[in-house]
């Protein structure tokens, strides 16, 4: 039985009001307003009139070669870093899970980059990969390992710039993946492994037939979260290459930022961010469908 509280019907709403009002005003309203802006040749300066141009912004974005390149780069970044983070994260989690000494120390070390700002770590990787001969990576490759003769201009070349950005993405994110996987591994009942051992399953068999199925839900959750994060990559690209040379390392968000806040093409930028949002929602939705299906199949 639930005791009845005599409160006026509007009391709960009164409680929610401050948060909800701000939330709608600062989050839902701008979201709609962004959609509105994307149909205009938007002028931010007071006194200038914005011209309604219908779907023209979207049309222009879809005809923009740089946008497609940025999208391709974003998809590639997402694929590489999501796979890298998940494989390395799971590998580390399995190992740390088996360790009895210093489990938390290892977990702590791998988690450090996660709590550090993207700005700081981007900065750090710029330093490590600096172009001159004394840069850490160049120096190590040339003078310590004797693998190269000439210093590499890591940031200046498209392909090598991606190496920096990919490795930063994996380095920064795998601690998070590891911690979540570790929590999932700790939730698997040990009896399962015991009975599998009795049935003669080896290490690999146990991993394949017990560990992997048992962490399936977690794996899918991590996948969805990482893919959403991957599509929104911005700071590392913006700070390390700035999208250059010639927009060749641009990702969708850095390109959106460049068009909006450097060129002041706000309508154009709004169209880009709506297209990106639509892609992210579609991809997440597809993955969540996967979630639901696997639940039905398993239980």
């Amino acid at each position, binding site marked *: 039985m*639930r*005791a009845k*509280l005599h*409160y006026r*019907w509007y*009391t*709960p*709403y009164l*409680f*929610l009001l*401050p*948060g909800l009002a*701000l*939330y709608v005003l*600062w*989050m839902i*309203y*701008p*979201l709609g307003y*962004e959609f509105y*802006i994307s149909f205009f040749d938007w002028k931010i300066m007071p006194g200038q009139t914005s011209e309604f141009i219908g779907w023209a912004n979207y049309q222009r974005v879809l005809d923009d070669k740089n946008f497609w390149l940025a999208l391709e780069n974003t998809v590639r970044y997402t694929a590489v870093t999501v796979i890298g983070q998940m494989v390395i994260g799971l590998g580390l989690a399995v*190992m740390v899970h*088996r*360790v009895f*000494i210093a489990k938390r*120390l290892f977990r*702590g*070390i*791998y*988690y450090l980059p996660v*709590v*550090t*700002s993207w*700005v*700081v770590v*981007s*900065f*750090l990787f710029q*330093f*490590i990969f600096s172009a001159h*001969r*004394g*840069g*850490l990576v160049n*120096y190590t490759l040339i003078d310590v390992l004797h693998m190269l003769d000439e210093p590499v201009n890591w940031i200046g070349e498209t392909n090598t710039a991606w190496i920096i950005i990919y490795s930063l993405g994996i380095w920064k994110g795998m601690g*998070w993946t590891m911690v*979540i996987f570790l*929590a999932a591994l700790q939730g698997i009942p040990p009896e399962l492994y015991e009975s599998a*051992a*009795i049935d003669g399953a080896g290490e690999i068999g146990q991993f394949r037939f017990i560990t992997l199925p048992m962490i399936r839900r977690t794996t899918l959750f991590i996948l969805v*979260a990482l893919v*959403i*994060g991957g599509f*929104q990559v*911005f700071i590392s690209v913006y*700070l390390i290459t700035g999208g250059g040379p010639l927009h060749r390392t641009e990702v969708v968000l850095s390109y959106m930022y460049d068009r*909006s806040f450097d060129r002041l093409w*706000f309508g154009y930028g709004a169209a880009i*961010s709506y297209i*990106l949002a639509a892609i992210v929602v579609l991809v997440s939705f597809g993955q969540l469908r996967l979630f639901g299906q696997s639940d039905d199949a398993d239980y």
Partner: protein
Amino acid sequence: MFTIPNWIIFGALIGSLGTYMLYDHKGHNGNQGALLGGVVGAVGNLLLLVPLWAYIVLRDVPFSEPVLAAASSAQADYHAASRVETARAQSETLRLVLRVAIYAFLILMALFYLMPVYTVVTTSLKTPDEAGQLNQVWDLPSSLNWQSYKTAFDMLGPKIRNSFLLTINATVISAVMGSLNGYVLAKWRFPGANIIFPLMLFGMFIPYQSILIPLFQFIQDINLGGSLVGLVMAHVIYGLPITTLIFRNYYTEVPTEMIEAGLIDGAGFFRVYINILFPLSLPGFVVVIIWQFTQIWNEFLFAVTLTNESSQPITVALALLAGGEAVKWNLPMAGAVLAALPTLVVYVVLGRYFIRGLLAGSVKG
């Protein structure tokens, strides 16, 4: 954190670092580095050896896992028992080898992983000349030069102050609001509740660059452009979905009987919150505050868009500092350490709650 096993690993890490330094500086003229390396190595190895000795002598922690104890229950037939025996015999050696390999690998990975941290700290302590030297990135500073930190602090001091103002205000406001929302949504049924909660959760999935441009314009329109207040508000609202979710999940665990008892005693809507739920909320607040603190401190995109030079937080200032093609990295590196320190301190001191908050929120950081 500071258990004997942790010290052993820690000691091994420090010890190998020290040994490396000693080796590295053998041929150089700077004896100070070699001396330092020797001392660090000795201390590290002491840290390693003493606990190891204690460990072996005391043996208070079983070194091997309790292997398959459950399998030899009364029900287990002869067949299963014999298989367990063979499995155990085979796996004893295998396990040992495997375990050593795992430790070796994890320690190596950790060293590799921490390499960037090593270079930041050493570079920030070098003199500008030394930091600009080619071929010395791996070396330790010949003497500890704290000047870069002093200069960086003089330059970045106001930005650090901005960051603290921003982070503390936004964290506290979003935590309190999240707590109120969480209370209402967890404990009361009212028309519209099942619309409002999903609406709030929806906010967690909005790619926040999608609201950047209108938010920028909106903040300009209400004359908060370039001020810290606008940025604080943006962070409060952007953090609201996650704080609401964490508090809602937290308050759902509070038994409804407690609330009913309060109601019978004549407490009203607000009194129930203040007298019953709020006093229980400390762990929830800790989780939310740690989460929000790190998120807001580290955030960049809102900050760079919504502030101007006098109100910008440290992340933006640092990014601008990095903009120039610096060769003498000692100063920027000192700035990076200053920018990273607060979240690292929070994390090291309150790490346990951190992981818990992470799992409670289950949201990417």
